[in-house]
């Protein structure tokens, strides 16, 4: 027997989704100084079931929830081994059933810096180690308690360590982990009940979180033309409570997810500077999150802003 909640979970971890790009604070790829890569990304995520605690449920008042986002972003090589990133997504969440309005708006601004502090030849390849710091801030006054809220409404600071080994043949493995320290979420209303207590405030203490992933991939020898990788990702809230039966999801719920995904990149020779990207992911297991399937793609364009003497724009991988 299925339980049908009248309410449902806010779409969560979209900020993670927006990191899925050609080059992100969580991968091991770097741009050279002066190289700029700007892009537009589209992501479509659908789910018709979600976990309330550890029970997987459908919700007849929602049907299938579709979350679409369009993000603009860029990567810039500042000095050797140091890149910065920024993205800003617009998100729309719409149900296929029920009579509750969909919700859309500008979501969270992401800014990050990534630094490679180790690049060492080991055997027939290179071992690389990088760190990154990411700051995420809600970029509009969206309503975090909306049934189809576009985000959690809180700032998030992420520290990340990335380790990769790439063989000279182009096969690579990568593992990375991030620790999220979250600021408070700000509700519209001034009273809420969660975690067995009532709070007379619009401020919600958000649990911190971790994410970690392992990736296997292949990239062509020019470090550029084609890249394909498969990824296994885990997201874990470090605290928070389960959605109560018949209650609406709440920003500070414990939200966990285990996902698999794949990313592809193709930079055709005939269109200099242009890059095409496709990514997909599927949620295998979760807690208080939607069981999402997402597919996204993007177009990037890169060129040298300075250091134009370097004849080709070749990211060091």
């Amino acid at each position, binding site marked *: 027997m299925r339980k049908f909640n009248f*309410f449902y979970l806010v779409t969560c971890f979209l900020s993670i989704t927006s990191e899925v790009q050609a080059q992100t604070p969580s991968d091991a790829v770097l741009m050279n100084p002066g190289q700029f890569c700007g892009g537009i990304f589209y992501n479509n995520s659908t789910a018709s079931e979600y976990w309330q605690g550890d029970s997987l449920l459908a919700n*007849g008042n929602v049907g299938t929830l579709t979350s679409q986002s369009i993000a603009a972003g860029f990567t810039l090589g500042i000095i050797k081994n140091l890149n910065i990133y920024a993205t800003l997504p617009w998100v729309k969440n719409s149900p296929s059933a*029920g*009579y*509750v309005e969909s919700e859309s708006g500008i979501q969270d601004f992401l800014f990050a810096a990534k630094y490679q502090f180790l690049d060492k030849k080991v055997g027939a390849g290179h071992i690389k180690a990088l760190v990154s710091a990411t700051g995420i801030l809600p970029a509009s006054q969206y309503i975090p*308690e909306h049934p189809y809220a576009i985000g959690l409404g809180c700032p998030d600071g992420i520290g990340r360590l990335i380790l990769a080994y790439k063989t000279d043949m182009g096969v690579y493995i990568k593992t990375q982990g991030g620790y999220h320290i979250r600021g408070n979420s700000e509700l*519209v209303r001034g009273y809420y009940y969660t975690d067995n207590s009532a709070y007379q405030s619009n401020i919600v203490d958000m649990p911190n979180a971790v994410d970690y992933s392992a990736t296997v991939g292949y990239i062509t020898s020019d470090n550029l033309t084609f890249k394909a990788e498969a990824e296994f990702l885990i997201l874990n809230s470090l605290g928070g409570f389960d959605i109560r039966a018949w209650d609406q999801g709440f920003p500070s719920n414990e939200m966990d997810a285990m996902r698999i995904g794949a990313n592809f990149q193709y930079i055709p020779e005939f269109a200099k500077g242009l890059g095409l990207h496709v990514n997909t992911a599927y949620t295998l297991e979760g807690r208080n999150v939607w069981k999402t399937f997402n597919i996204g793609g993007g177009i990037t364009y890169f060129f040298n802003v300075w250091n134009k003497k370097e004849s080709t724009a070749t990211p060091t991988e």
Partner: protein
Amino acid sequence: MKNNNLILTALFSATVLVFTSCENDIPGGIVYEAYTFSSKDEDGGNWKPILLTSGADVIIDAPADVTSAEYLAELAEVKTFSSSLSADQKEIVAYWGNNTAVRWMEIAEALVAKYNLPPDPGPDGNYPPPTASPLTSDFPFAHPPFASRMYAHLSASLYDATISTWHYKFTYNRPALYVTDGSITLAYPKNDIPSYPSEDAAIAMSAQNILSFLFPNDVAFIAEKAKECRDSRKWAGLATESDLVAGDSIGNYVSFIYIERSKVDNAKFAQVDKATYTLLEDTATMLWGDQWQHWLNIDFPPRPVGVTPLFGNVTPWWIPNVEALRPGPPPAIGSVAYLEAEEELLDLTENATKEQEEMAFNWGDGPGTYTPCGHWNLLAAEKIVEAGLNPLRSVRIFAYLNTAMGDAGISCWDTKYYYFYPRPSQANPEIKSTFMTPNFPGYTSGHSTFSGAAAQVLSHFFPSDANEFENFAVEASNSRIYGRIHFRFDCEVGLTVGNEVGDFAISAAMVDGGE
């Protein structure tokens, strides 16, 4: 390598910077410092209680003399406690403050928020009637009418109990502890009010009994709170054991009267089974079928019966009967008045402003919250401590506020199921709302009726804040339009009827001796 370290440090610092802004201490209730009372109300023991005939109904014996060995031993106990408080005890003393009724109302609000969720579905996968056996862990379903009735019984009992303590305080005149013994450490500002019997004990005992009766799954939690409240009186240097014991007797007596009333106020018949419900729907079709299709739950799957269709039969506190307040019928579907209201909601579906959406959520007070009545209690509590009211005057306001909202609930529910008027998204599926529609008919709006009554009563007690309360009531009422779960006429008529209900409570307050 030096460069390396520098950049690593910078990245680390940037991350830490974002992190450190996260420290916070989120309050569970209103924040106030214990204060000096703005009045003593020596004659308060003669005020007219709501269910008791007078404050002298409970017989409380004269206390031992302040020079007796017995009393001196009690004082010594208080002195031992109050001079050596642990950090935890100090926190508890500060939390309860010198107006414990404020905290009891908050505890009641939290219990409502905890239980304001529909029960589990039956074995057929469909929703059962929104009641449950007291044996289930989700009992009771503390929906808005349940909550309004609970707040009314609780606060009125606190008023009657406090009147009774005032009666004996100024009959026996046992001085405050710090007056008898200057070496007592009083945790709060001095308020020269006789200590026997303790109003806080009477309030705690009455609250404990009533809340335990209505929330049988939380008896242990409620008892723990009551013990904490009671103990904190000694820790604060405010009451001795005999003050508390006499207060307990009053609380026990008064809560018994209120619990007995609650057993026979017809609330237990308010929720009906599917067969009875179908009869009510058929009656609505017979009466109004040519003007509107009766309200249907449009959730997936639909809930088979609405929330408490016969709540209009519950015994009111002040209004003579529900018929006297029942408004005329809402506009027929397709009429000019209807089309105008429908057009407004269609427009809001497309073009609601940020401010309008926020108002819908700010006053949403839906499932999993303390309901609109809880929201008004919170607003009242802030005014009460701001005005420095003593416990007697505080519970008087809570009592009239909540009995008025209790009557508002009764009157509104009568109207809702008399007309069985559809919700906007049923009448026109093009209308989308900001959240789920409550499981009861639209006309009139519960939020508006509760808020109309609340604003009227609070404006009477705080005339200089009348505009503010009126604005809040209009906001609460409009929020249902902005949320598109009510037509404007649902809200406007509800607000007007709410005001009328409030006037009945005010009429009673005018002659209770406390004006």
